[in-house]
């Protein structure tokens, strides 16, 4: 599969999830952010100013495309309209990475626009791995799949989430976007040890990490991506970097988006962790 990788700009260091609230600031101030990740679904099939933003940013910064539209775990056929639009965007803008989620988002032409977890079974692993392979073949590149935060578990699951994620990556020969916040949220919600999760992750397949903030709802954590990264997630991130080495890392903020400098501050914290890890490794 690796011989299918398209040569594109590589990314490193700490990037920021680019949101509409920051378009004008980024265009005006040209921050030294090494790369941006965009929610590519917001641009596919859209024109006018929306598409112009994507053109502008692709000319100034390396980009990573992050989507939810593949619905890789759904039992509906893969959406060829979506994949075709994504393929065109990849050919036009040459992103460094393309990622989606290890989840399903709808069935029988009804879409939830949320990231629904899979049951952790052999059947589900084979199903989603087969669809990842189809998508990679169609797009002519390996993709990254992201672990999602979850609030439910199925009785039929007969392996852990971490075992399932690692198994799917192996079956599909795909890469992994390790969302540290999502591991922490799921670990809290389902009472497992987040470090045990890390121990099962395939290091060589991890090509990117995400950091974000959750909301404490009392008896569960809600992955809102609407706050600063919490202390235990920073701790888990340090653990992940110590275990796997440095990886391109993204600061994600989707709701109640603050001014850009707040995200830059979060990015600086992550960069410090990466720099220290590199110094120790040297």
């Amino acid at each position, binding site marked *: 599969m690796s011989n299918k990788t398209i040569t594109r700009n590589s990314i490193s260091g700490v990037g920021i999830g680019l949101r509409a609230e920051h378009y004008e600031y980024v265009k005006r101030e040209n921050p030294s952010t090494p790369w941006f990740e965009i929610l590519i679904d917001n641009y596919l099939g859209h024109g006018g100013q929306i598409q112009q933003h994507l053109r502008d940013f692709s000319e100034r910064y390396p980009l990573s495309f992050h989507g939810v539209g593949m619905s890789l775990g759904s039992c509906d056929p893969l959406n060829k309209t979506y994949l075709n639009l994504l393929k065109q965007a990849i050919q036009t803008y040459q992103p460094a990475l393309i990622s989606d989620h290890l989840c399903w988002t709808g069935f029988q032409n*009804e*879409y939830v626009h949320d990231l629904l977890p899979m049951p952790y079974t052999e059947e589900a692993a084979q199903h989603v791995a087969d669809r990842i392979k189809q998508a990679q073949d169609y797009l002519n590149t390996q993709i990254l799949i992201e672990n999602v935060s979850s609030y*439910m578990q199925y009785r039929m699951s007969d392996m852990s989430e971490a075992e399932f994620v690692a198994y799917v990556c192996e079956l599909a020969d795909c890469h992994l976007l390790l969302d540290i916040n999502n591991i922490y949220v799921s670990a809290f919600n389902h009472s497992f040890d987040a470090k045990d999760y890390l121990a099962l992750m395939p290091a060589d397949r991890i090509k990117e990490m995400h950091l974000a903030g959750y909301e404490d709802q009392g008896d569960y954590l809600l992955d809102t991506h609407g706050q600063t990264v919490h202390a235990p997630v920073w701790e888990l991130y340090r653990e992940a970097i110590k275990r796997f080495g440095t990886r391109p890392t993204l600061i994600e903020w989707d709701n109640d988006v603050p001014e850009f400098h707040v995200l830059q501050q979060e990015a600086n914290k992550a960069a410090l962790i990466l720099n220290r890890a590199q110094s120790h490794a040297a």
Partner: protein
Amino acid sequence: MLPELQKQFMDGLLRNDTRIETQLDGQIRSSQQQLDIYRNSYQGGLLKAMQAIYPVTQRLLGNKFFEAMCLRYIIQTPCQSFDINQYGESFADFAEQFKPVSELVYLADVIRLEWAWHYAYQTDDTPPQDFTPLLSFSASQLESVHLTLATSMTLLTSLYPVNLIWSTNQSDQNDDQESIELDNDPCFLIIWRNGFDSHIDVVEQDLFQFLKSIQNNLLLGQLQSKNENFEEQLVTCLQRGYFSAYHF
């Protein structure tokens, strides 16, 4: 097993079917609680999408009423596109049947206008064809020409001055505006985008009908025979950029 599980979950989430509850592990929190978290997220996401598309409607109704009305709509209208920007097109039809707003006779058309504005802004680019060759067409050739309206265009007519209601209730307008008379003549609106700029063009009825006829696939020859201002209207529309293509 997987398709049945997904069917049961969707039925549970959207239609309160309880079959999924036996499939969920209730050791840490009940099946109902697990479903509620996803249901809240699902409804919240669609509400946020609708708030972005219908800010004038939200201003007219007030935040709480708008939210409650949207939730009623969301419950009965599942999203059928991977693109959340396509959600909410039928909200105007819902408003027409929604009894609590029955006295707001203009509301459904305001919603239609907002949807058309949203559609124009985000629709894909379609570079217009070069219409210069049409100038050298003979009269008989022109009769067989069929024109296509700009991809971003919506034609909207209303018994109420919805364009005034829309412009008066933009977020940068203050609250102490003069009231708008609803007894004005019907309005004929063309909502479309040219490059990066979205427009609401208020036009005369005959020009609106001209464009409507083109939208209904009438040939230029058919339009010419029915319309004494045909040439003037054709030139006006070409100059404004209302067409994206021609075929013959």
